[in-house]
């Protein structure tokens, strides 16, 4: 039995398989978040609980059968879906789901120096893009995906870099008064939609005449899908998914900006911002 999804070289079958490592990991994440919220359980905010639940669910879907298993060793397109879910969907949802009291308590106690150091916007931008480059270098990806430990390392690198990227946008601690809403919008655009790394990767996946990753090129076919077409789908998924996530994030930031301006300057500010948009 496998504990984590990785390339196996055996024919794909639509029959369920258990990955206990994934269950343990999801249980550990849930337990850690629950333990963080013990004090605020008496005053739950349903929408935050829902967001956090969706984040954990996105993580689970990405790691477990069938998406995790297909992405681990059969289809580049599923690998890309995993990346989107693990790095760009789950972390912001989980961070948005954190109760304000937890942030307040973190602020009161003071954030550990190392955590402050690695949660700057610059670090987030670099971390996500460096991890995208490293985990999509064919030599590195093919080598790591061949083992369960290697696949686990890739998934964790995505999750951690995703958390670092989203932290300055979503987490109110530490306070970053200089990181205003226009900068935040630029950060999202530069980090995902117009990231040079993403653009190059998408171009290589879509336009290369041969598949990028040996793992998927030499994997047993799933429903007869050609590996070049699969790689093209991966590129399109990264492009379309990245744009969609960027637009959702930018819309959210914009309306938060409007809301905060209204609170600070009255309703006239909304007209001003709408004109600017």
């Amino acid at each position, binding site marked *: 039995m496998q504990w984590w999804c990785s390339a196996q070289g055996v024919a794909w079958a639509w029959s369920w398989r258990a990955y206990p490592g994934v269950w343990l990991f999801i249980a550990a994440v849930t337990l850690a978040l629950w333990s963080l919220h013990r004090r605020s359980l008496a005053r739950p905010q349903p929408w935050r609980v829902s967001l956090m639940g969706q984040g954990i669910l996105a993580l689970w879907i990405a790691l477990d059968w069938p998406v995790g298993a297909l992405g681990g060793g059969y289809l580049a397109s599923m690998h890309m879906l995993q990346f989107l879910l693990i790095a760009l969907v789950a972390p912001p949802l989980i961070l948005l789901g954190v109760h304000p009291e937890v942030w307040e308590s973190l602020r009161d106690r003071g954030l550990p120096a*190392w955590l402050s*150091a*690695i949660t*700057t916007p610059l670090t987030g931008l670099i971390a996500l893009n*460096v991890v995208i480059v490293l985990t999509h270098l064919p030599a590195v990806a093919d080598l790591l995906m061949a083992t369960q430990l290697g696949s686990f390392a890739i998934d964790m690198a995505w999750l951690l870099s995703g958390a670092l990227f989203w932290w300055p946008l979503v987490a109110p601690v530490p306070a970053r008064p200089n990181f205003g809403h226009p900068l935040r919008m630029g950060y999202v655009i530069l980090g995902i939609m117009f990231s040079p790394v993403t653009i190059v990767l998408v171009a290589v996946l879509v336009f290369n005449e*041969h598949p990028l990753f*040996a793992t998927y090129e030499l994997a047993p076919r799933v429903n007869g899908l050609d590996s070049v077409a699969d790689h093209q789908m991966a590129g399109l998924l990264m492009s379309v998914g990245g744009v969609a996530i960027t637009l959702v994030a930018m819309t959210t930031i914009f309306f938060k900006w409007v809301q905060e301006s209204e609170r600070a300057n009255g309703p006239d500010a909304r007209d001003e911002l709408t004109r600017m948009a």
Partner: protein
Amino acid sequence: MRAATFRTVSSLRFLRLGAALLVAAACTQGSASARDESARRVAETGLYGRALDSALVIPSVSLADLDGNAIDLAKLTRGKLTLLFFGYTHCPDVCPVHMTNIAAAMRTLSWAERDGIRVVFVTTDPERDTPVRLRSWLGSIDSSFVGLRGTNASIDSAQRGLGLPEAMRLPGAHPGDYQVGHAGQVLAVFADGRARYAYPFGTRQAEFAHDLTKLVAASAGANARDPEER
């Protein structure tokens, strides 16, 4: 200001360390990989294919095409570069990957180069690979691929003649089902009817595309030198 600088430097160090660890892990573990082996072959011969110790003459074995016409394997594989593979259509892994990779590589070649290549697929499972099934399976990959059938004895004889292990039935996942164990390499047979290179499972599309261009030219040269062809 100093604290902020320190934080940035610390975070960059953290990132650099992580990146270095990942790359180091990749480099150390990958040193003895198949990639190095194929890179060595390319450096030595200019081809990704494994040169056979001595050229193998394709045995004269009687098989049948999908219309039931008798075909002599030795005659069929003469005249232009032939990629010869023994496999079966129910194969869950090696056969479809090899065949689709060859088809994909051929799509990147010029028409003239493609015209200089013949792909022959000899079934090792004649019982289940009926002409209809074989035609449909090959047609879904590349309609120019040639499918051949035969008796188990003639197919075994062809494999023996090429120094390949004879295909054998293995129990399948379900009762009554079976798989067929067979050689995984594609043989590159030159126009003079001699197999000179083998492509094991794991050969990539880019590697096939790289080699096929060179093999077409080399094969034509071998044909010109072959007295029988003249």
